[in-house]
């Protein structure tokens, strides 16, 4: 390993790195580093500010009580917290299997013909403003099938947002599974559906989980479509056919109010939302890891 440093004069002039090139190199690496630093700095700034402003609002009551009217001290965001979990569960149950199934169909069964149109459709849906999805679900479920605001409608609107995220991400990771593994399994005399279920998906497991986490995180933070579907509810409810609270709605309500106490609570709810999304992500990873062995 030990290499003797050559005296500089031993290197022919044409092989010496020109000093201008070296400066350019440094400048570019410096700019790249600066850009990285800037993006991390924004993240750190947001997180630390949310923590600093949010922590004073936190106490046991904040997690266990329902919101109180203005002027009354205390109260918490328990209905919204539970609502966010319920909505994440409904939307996850709809969107994760659907998105995975769509990705499997495109990659494993119809690689050539369907991939482009399906990907285009997924792109269009993920490009739709979430409020438009909210209006659509409002028209079809809230005004139509269900007849009133309901947790189920909120879950469906979040699922519509999640499906393209899951499908696109899973599609990418399925394409990363080496074809040699599919061939190995096929050559063992396995039917195709078993090859996908027992070899392809387990190999892509980490990526599939990441897709689910990304989608849940994105949906759990949505506010606009929930205003038109789940509506929000200051009372504890897990009834799928009744309006239900959600942390983003609660944050919005508290934040637009003129009261200092509610502003503090908005920060507290923001912090709770960030932590909840983190915990859901972590839980998904743990559950998925256990199922394999």
């Amino acid at each position, binding site marked *: 390993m030990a290499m003797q440093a050559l005296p500089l004069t031993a290197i022919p002039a044409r092989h010496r790195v020109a000093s201008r090139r070296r400066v350019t190199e440094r400048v570019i690496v410096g700019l790249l580093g600066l850009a990285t630093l800037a993006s991390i700095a924004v993240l750190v700034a947001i997180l630390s500010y949310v923590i600093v402003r949010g922590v004073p609002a936190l106490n046991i009551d904040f997690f266990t009580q329902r919101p109180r009217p203005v002027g009354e001290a205390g109260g918490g965001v328990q209905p919204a917290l539970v609502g966010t979990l319920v909505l994440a569960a409904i939307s996850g149950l709809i969107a994760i299997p659907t998105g995975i199934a769509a990705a499997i169909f495109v990659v494993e069964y119809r690689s*050539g013909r369907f991939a482009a149109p399906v990907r285009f459709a997924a792109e269009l849906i993920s490009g739709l403003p979430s409020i438009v999805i909210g209006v659509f679900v409002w028209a079809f479920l809230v005004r139509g099938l269900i007849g009133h605001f309901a947790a189920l409608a909120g879950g469906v609107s979040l699922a519509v947002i999640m499906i393209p995220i899951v499908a696109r991400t899973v599609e990418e990771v399925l394409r990363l599974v080496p074809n*040699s593994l599919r*061939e190995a*399994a096929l050559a*063992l*005399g*396995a039917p195709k559906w078993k090859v996908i279920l027992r070899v392809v998906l387990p190999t892509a*497991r980490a990526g599939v989980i990441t897709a689910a986490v990304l989608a849940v995180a994105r949906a759990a933070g949505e506010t606009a479509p929930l205003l038109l579907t789940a509506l929000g509810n200051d009372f504890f409810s897990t009834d799928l056919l009744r309006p239900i609270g959600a942390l983003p709605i609660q944050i919005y309500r508290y934040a637009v109010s003129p009261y200092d106490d509610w502003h503090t609570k908005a920060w507290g709810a923001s912090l709770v939302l960030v932590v909840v999304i983190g915990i859901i992500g972590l839980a998904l990873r743990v559950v998925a890891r256990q199922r394999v062995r």
Partner: protein
Amino acid sequence: MVLATSETNRAAPAPESRGTPVRVEHLDAWYGQHHAISGVTFDMAPGTVTAIIGPSGCGKSTLVRCLNRMHEVTPGARARGGVLIGDTDIYSPYADPVAVRSMVGMVFQKPNPFPMMSVYDNVAAGPRLRGWRMRRAEMDDLVERNLRRAALWDEVKDKLSRSGAALSGGQQQRLCIARTLATDPSVILMDEPCSALDPIATYKIEELIRELAHDVTIVIVTHNMQQASRVSEHTAFMLAGDDGVGRLVEFSTTERVFTMPKDPRTEAYITGRFG
């Protein structure tokens, strides 16, 4: 439809063999518009090793992939002709490719153990993927028996729960052989099984091939002519013509092909004048 087979391409059976005879009759294969191989006809006696040699692009891999209907897995690929494994015509309209692949195992060029499975699970993968119902003890027994047949048991018996991808290249390839053996095929196709391995690992695989030939019929594609002469009884030499279509130029006992080839092109190839 039974097609006449030219006498020169017929191999004498090894006397005490237990594998299955393989007959290839007028086999053609395409990739989309590209005609990859044409009119390939030869016979393999049960329990023999047949080497397929020839320069790159002559259709060797395509040929073996036609023998277990893996060729058609490639989008746009198709094949026509007769391939008889024992009495079964695997290209008959009634043949099920999944069932065909359970008779004819395959070992690939690059070792491809399932990376998320342990050594044990890799060997158990075939039976499990086919839905064989087995008790734990039976599976333990099957895994050990096939790791022994693949001459890998002594090296991995203490790390059965480690990932198959953690083994060395040569061990991975023997693990793939054990995985194939575990489904009890009567024919095994090997597509350049040693080209990614060092000489010692290659030697072990060659020894293993000789050993396995007592029970199964083996087809091995190889770029290495010494390897062909070491492991095989019969050798098929393939060559792509000016039209890019691969054809079988010569099929005979390995000894004849390497000592007194009939076709001048075979001689040119084995003496290293092209390819």
